[in-house]
C-alpha cells in the first residue's frame, strides 16, 4: 500500500439519532492509529462502516472489501460452530493464512475442535483476533481487542501487533485501554460529538509534555 487509507464525510443515523456527522480521516501506510472516544461516541458504528458490516451510510472510503480485515466486538458466528469451522469460513472468503492461525490457536491453548459455546469470552475474542490477524489485508480494524482477555493473551496480542507494525499497512484500534496500547500507537484520533479530531502524531503529543491519556481527556469532553 503506497497511498493513505482515507474515508470522507461518513454520515450515519439510527432513525432520528444522528451518530456520525460527516467524519473524515486519512491514515498513512505503516500507521497504528488509536481510535479513542467515550462510550456511545460512535467508534463501533464507524468501524462497522469501514469494515464492510454496515452499508447503510453516506460518504466514501478508499479501500473496501477484501482489503479490510475487521475484528468485531462480537463475533457473528453460530454458537454451535467449532473453532475450525470459523477458520474454514475465513479461508473460504478471504486470503487467509490458516497455518499461522492454527499455530496461534495452539499457542493460546484453544482447541480447534472446541465449540464456540464452550469457550470463555476471552478465548472467543482471541479467536476473533487470530482470524483478523491471519487475514491478508491492507487495513486492520480492531474493536476493543483486549476486552476480557487475561494478561497472557494481552501480551500475545501486543507482541503480534508489534511484529507487524513495520509493514506498510494501516491498523486502527478502537479502545478504552489507552495504557495498554499507548506506546504502540503512532497516531491518535478522537471521536466526539459525531466528529473525528484531526490525526495527531503520538510522539508529537508527548513532545509537548502531554501523555496520550491527558491529551484524550482534554479532547474527549
Amino acid at each position, binding site marked *: 500500500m503506497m497511498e493513505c487509507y482515507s474515508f470522507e464525510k461518513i454520515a450515519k443515523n439510527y432513525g432520528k439519532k444522528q451518530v456520525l456527522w460527516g467524519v473524515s480521516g486519512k491514515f498513512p501506510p*505503516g500507521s*497504528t492509529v488509536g481510535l479513542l472516544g467515550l462510550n456511545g461516541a460512535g467508534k463501533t458504528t464507524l468501524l462497522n462502516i469501514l469494515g464492510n458490516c454496515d452499508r447503510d451510510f453516506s460518504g466514501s472510503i478508499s479501500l473496501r472489501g477484501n482489503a479490510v480485515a475487521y475484528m468485531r466486538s462480537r463475533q457473528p458466528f453460530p454458537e454451535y460452530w467449532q473453532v475450525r469451522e470459523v477458520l474454514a469460513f475465513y479461508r473460504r472468503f478471504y486470503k487467509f493464512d490458516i497455518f499461522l492461525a492454527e499455530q496461534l490457536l495452539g499457542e493460546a491453548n484453544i482447541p480447534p475442535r472446541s465449540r464456540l459455546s464452550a469457550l470463555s469470552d476471552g478465548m472467543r475474542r482471541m479467536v476473533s483476533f487470530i482470524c483478523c490477524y491471519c487475514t491478508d489485508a491492507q487495513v486492520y480494524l480492531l474493536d476493543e481487542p483486549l476486552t476480557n482477555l487475561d494478561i497472557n493473551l494481552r501480551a500475545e496480542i*501486543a*507482541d503480534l501487533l*508489534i*511484529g507487524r*507494525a*513495520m509493514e506498510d499497512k494501516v491498523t486502527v484500534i478502537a479502545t478504552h485501554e489507552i495504557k495498554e496500547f*499507548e*506506546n*504502540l*500507537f*503512532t497516531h491518535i484520533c478522537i471521536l466526539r460529538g459525531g466528529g473525528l479530531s484531526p490525526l495527531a502524531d503520538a*510522539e508529537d503529543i*508527548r*513532545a509537548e*509534555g*502531554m*501523555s*496520550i*491519556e*491527558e491529551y484524550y481527556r482534554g479532547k474527549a469532553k
Partner: protein
Amino acid sequence: MYFKGNETIYSQIAEKIKKKIFSGEYPCGTRLPAIRDLAVACQVNPNTVVRVYQQLSEEGLIYTDGTSGKFVTPDAALLSQKKREYLRGRALQFAREAKEAGVSEGEALTLAAAALADVFKADNVL
C-alpha cells in the same frame, strides 16, 4: 520497560542506550539489538525504535553495516568525547537547577563535591 507518558518514547529509549554505550555495557563495535527485538522488549512500536537508531546514527554513536545490523562505533576516541559532552550536559543541568534554587556557586560546588565523594567512596568499598 517503564516510560514516562509525557516525554517522547524515542528520546527515553535513546537515553537508555546511550547510557549502556557510555558505561561499556555495549562496548565499541558491539551489535545492537534488532529493531523488532528491541520493540518487543520495550513493548513499543518498531517505528519508534527506527527513530532511536536514526538519532544515535546522526550523533555518530552507532553505524549501520549494510544489512547485518547496527553497531556501536569502533571509534573509542569519539565515544569518550561524546561521553564527556553528555556528562557536561548533565552537569550543566545541575548548575542551572542550583542557580534557580538560589544557591551560590560555592555552595553548589560543595554539594556536588560531597555527592561525588559519596558515590566514588561507595564504589571503592565494593
